[in-house]
């Protein structure tokens, strides 16, 4: 009898221990059209949760990851967000690979008061500030400001803008047009192209023919910018070419061809140029550690900026959960908002009541492609 009683007590203890796992939810586009972003994000999130548990979890309790793949579909993302909150009982959510899926998830997060850290670019996610929604990537507007600042410093003020007609390209085009004037930049040509176009020489020919034009900026994502870079070289245009942060990866150089991409400038994160950073740079150890861990966990796949966004989101969440007085969603939210000077791969995050992006322009590094690799522009 006594033995049975002990057994029951032991079982009950085990049950509480198991149910005390802290559940973290994740929704990313591991498959579908945004899978080149979502795949490294999913790998990073799994890797970070494992590492967290290997270090002893959160205040001695294990973190349990519930990860869903929305395939890039906002309505699926919304269903999964509801399931995470209502059925799985997660205390926080990370994900939303694209702006569309992020907007779907954040509606659920706001309604159910569960903190959500988004991995998508658009400024609408955190502007106006929503109490339970944060994000880690830079915004398009910051990329425009960074590029325009670099152009000004080289004395280039009359530029041509060419944008993809996809969501990323259209959004960045609107932001760049909005901040051009205040940055002292005059946009003298404004062309567009389809994201899967095989040849973009007519648009580039028209841009080249604009009198007094000094540089060209492409706001685009995916293979379009690589086609532009090759067409640019084909036409022999000598003006400086700027690309967006959306193509800051080695795959872009490979698709464009190193010779065609020579001299192209773009804003990117420290992750891309970890080895080139100053040894005193606070991001250097963070970036190099993530790169090594990811490449080991992903079987040699190269790190991408997108995985870096997921890394930073998990870092912020883990720190907030360690600091929060309880594992209640509201307490975690308060702790996330109190994040100050946390160094991630994208930049140093300082959230506040009025700022749920937490980054400034210093997080972007102006990079130049040189001999098939990257060079930091001082």
């Amino acid at each position: 009898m006594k033995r049975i009683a002990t057994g029951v007590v032991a079982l009950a203890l085990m049950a509480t221990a198991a149910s005390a796992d802290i559940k973290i939810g994740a929704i990313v586009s591991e498959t579908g059209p945004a899978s080149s972003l979502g795949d490294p994000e999913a790998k990073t999130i799994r890797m970070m949760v494992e590492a967290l548990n290997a270090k002893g979890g959160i205040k001695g309790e294990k973190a349990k990851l519930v990860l869903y793949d929305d395939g890039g579909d906002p309505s699926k993302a919304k269903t999964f967000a509801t399931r995470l909150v209502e059925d799985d009982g997660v205390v926080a959510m990370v994900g939303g690979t694209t702006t569309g899926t992020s907007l779907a998830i954040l509606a659920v997060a706001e309604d159910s008061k569960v903190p959500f850290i988004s991995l998508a670019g658009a400024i609408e996610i955190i502007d106006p500030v929503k109490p339970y929604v944060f994000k880690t990537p830079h915004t398009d507007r910051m990329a425009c400001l960074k590029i325009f600042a670099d152009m000004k410093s080289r004395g280039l003020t009359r530029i041509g803008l060419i944008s993809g007609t996809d969501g990323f390209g259209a959004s960045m085009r609107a932001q760049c047009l909005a901040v051009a004037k205040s940055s002292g930049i005059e946009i003298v040509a404004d062309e567009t192209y389809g994201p899967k176009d095989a040849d973009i020489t007519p648009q580039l020919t028209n841009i080249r023919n604009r009198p007094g034009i000094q540089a060209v900026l492409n706001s685009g994502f995916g293979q379009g910018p690589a086609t532009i870079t090759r067409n640019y070289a084909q036409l022999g245009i000598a003006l400086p070419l700027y690309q967006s942060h959306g193509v800051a990866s080695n795959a872009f150089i490979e698709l464009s061809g190193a010779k065609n991409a020579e001299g192209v400038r773009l804003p990117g994160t420290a992750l891309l140029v970890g080895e080139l950073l100053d040894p005193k740079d606070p991001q250097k150890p963070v970036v190099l550690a993530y790169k090594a861990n990811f490449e080991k966990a992903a079987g040699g796949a190269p790190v991408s900026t997108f995985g870096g966004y997921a890394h930073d989101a998990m870092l912020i969440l883990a720190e907030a959960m360690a600091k929060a007085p309880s594992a209640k969603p509201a307490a975690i939210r308060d702790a996330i908002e109190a994040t100050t000077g946390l160094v991630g791969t994208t930049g140093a995050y300082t959230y506040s009541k009025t700022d749920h992006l937490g980054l400034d322009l210093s997080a972007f590094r102006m990079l130049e492609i040189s001999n098939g690799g990257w060079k930091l522009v001082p």
Partner: protein
Amino acid sequence: MSDLLQFLASGVTVGAVYALVALGFTIIYNASDVVNFAQGEFVMLGGMISVAGVAAGLPLPLAALIAIVATAAIGVALNTFAIEPARGAPVVSLIIITIGASIFIRGVTQIVLDKGTHRLPSFSGDAPFHVLGATVLPQSLWVVAGAVAIFVALWLFFTRTLTGRAVLATSNNRLAAQLVGINTKFVMTLSFALSAAIGALAGVLITPILPTSFEVGISLALKGFAAAMLGGMGNPKGALAGGLLLGLMEALTAGYISSHYKDAVAFFVILAVLFAFPRGLYGSNPTERV
């Protein structure tokens, strides 16, 4: 003048890409009246498998050959496992089956191969030709030559060979074709194999210009389908003319009107043409027996 030439060069390059995809629709359509919406996936497979072959260290011609043969086998499998069992179903059901197959092929490709975007090296280098101030990449000539070669081969196949006429006969009346001794099952298998092979060859030719990934098939099939409809479904001449016309319209609109209206103008012209010629520029006039 040099601007016009540049726009034309761009239009012909893009148009040849569309024509290559549109030509792939021809055979299956002629054999079964089915518009095969997995045709874009055949083009994608041609590109993706050759990329994988080149990455594994194979020389490009061998990788391309493997890609074409493998894709043809996949085309045969599509016919055997999805189209043949549904024989007798209305054409619309068969078309929906091909849409399902295209989603399936996309899914398997991203698992078996990968999710990245890749490019094949250009066949004869990247140094552009200069023609009266316009520039043309050598790969564009490969694509145009490929489109013309496939067009000629298809035209000879349908008009000069017994097998080609058997394909047309099967499409006209399957039962009558069987009665005169045509193995219609073989004709169907053959038409899927050939269509898939043409698609894969197109994929190999265009991947140096238009980088490939598991999802390029959708947009290619859409443009190729538009080109085929414009020219007249089932007619190789129509596929070639429709593709080139569509490419030229896009390039000239982007050059002279505005790149913002590039796709809108092209589709407006297609609608207008289809209003005047409902079966496309070179579409056959069906004679209905009363």
